[in-house]
């Protein structure tokens, strides 16, 4: 299935991309599974999204836990803890 990935702030800079369309295996259907899937892309991804990093996620512009499901057509955003206000 296809989902849209977005990256913000420090994560965007570290990964060198603001986002992409990605084709996922059917089994990659939670936020946690997607994050693990992305770690397979190599060192840059591991250092940005590895377990040691505090990463927040939104699915379709809603902040969610890592157990949240994802489905075809979703917009999934990864970002550092927010620092507005």
């Amino acid at each position: 299935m296809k989902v849209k990935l977005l990256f913000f702030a420090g994560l965007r800079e570290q990964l060198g991309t603001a986002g992409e369309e990605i084709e996922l295996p059917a089994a990659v259907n939670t936020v946690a599974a997607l994050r693990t899937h992305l770690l397979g892309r190599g060192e840059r991804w591991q250092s940005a999204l590895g377990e040691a990093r505090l990463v927040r996620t939104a699915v379709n512009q809603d902040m969610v836990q890592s157990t949240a499901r994802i489905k075809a057509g979703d917009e999934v955003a990864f970002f550092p803890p927010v620092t507005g206000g």
Partner: protein
Amino acid sequence: MKVSVQTADFDLSSEVKALAEKNTNIGAVASFVGVVREVAMTLEHYPAMTEAAIRKIVEEAKSRWEVMDCTVIHRYGELQPSDQIVLVAVASAHRGDAFAACEFIMDYLKTRAPFWKKEHRAEGARWVEARASDDDAAERWAGKVG
């Protein structure tokens, strides 16, 4: 309810007056202005999500306290020291409700609204790290009924 995410500055007086004039039952307006301290910064946000996230926070505040009206303005882009960053203004018949709702919205903005600050220091630019104290501030509302 007015929610605006913008690069432009805002005028606190006009925003508070606009709130107070809407309803003759409004007797109290509590407001908060966040200001850039010593260091210039760039504020990034997640355009498709930001306004909706803020509206959700305001709705949550309205379900907890007697809020007659509310304005939230959050700037993004380049900001200089002593520039205004954020305004939360809450109008109510009662000052206790106005204060509580205003502080609640600020605490949740700090942990739920998708903004990120990058400071431009002499030694280089760096992303501001989230503070555990902000999570604590938001969490203390969890058990409370307004």
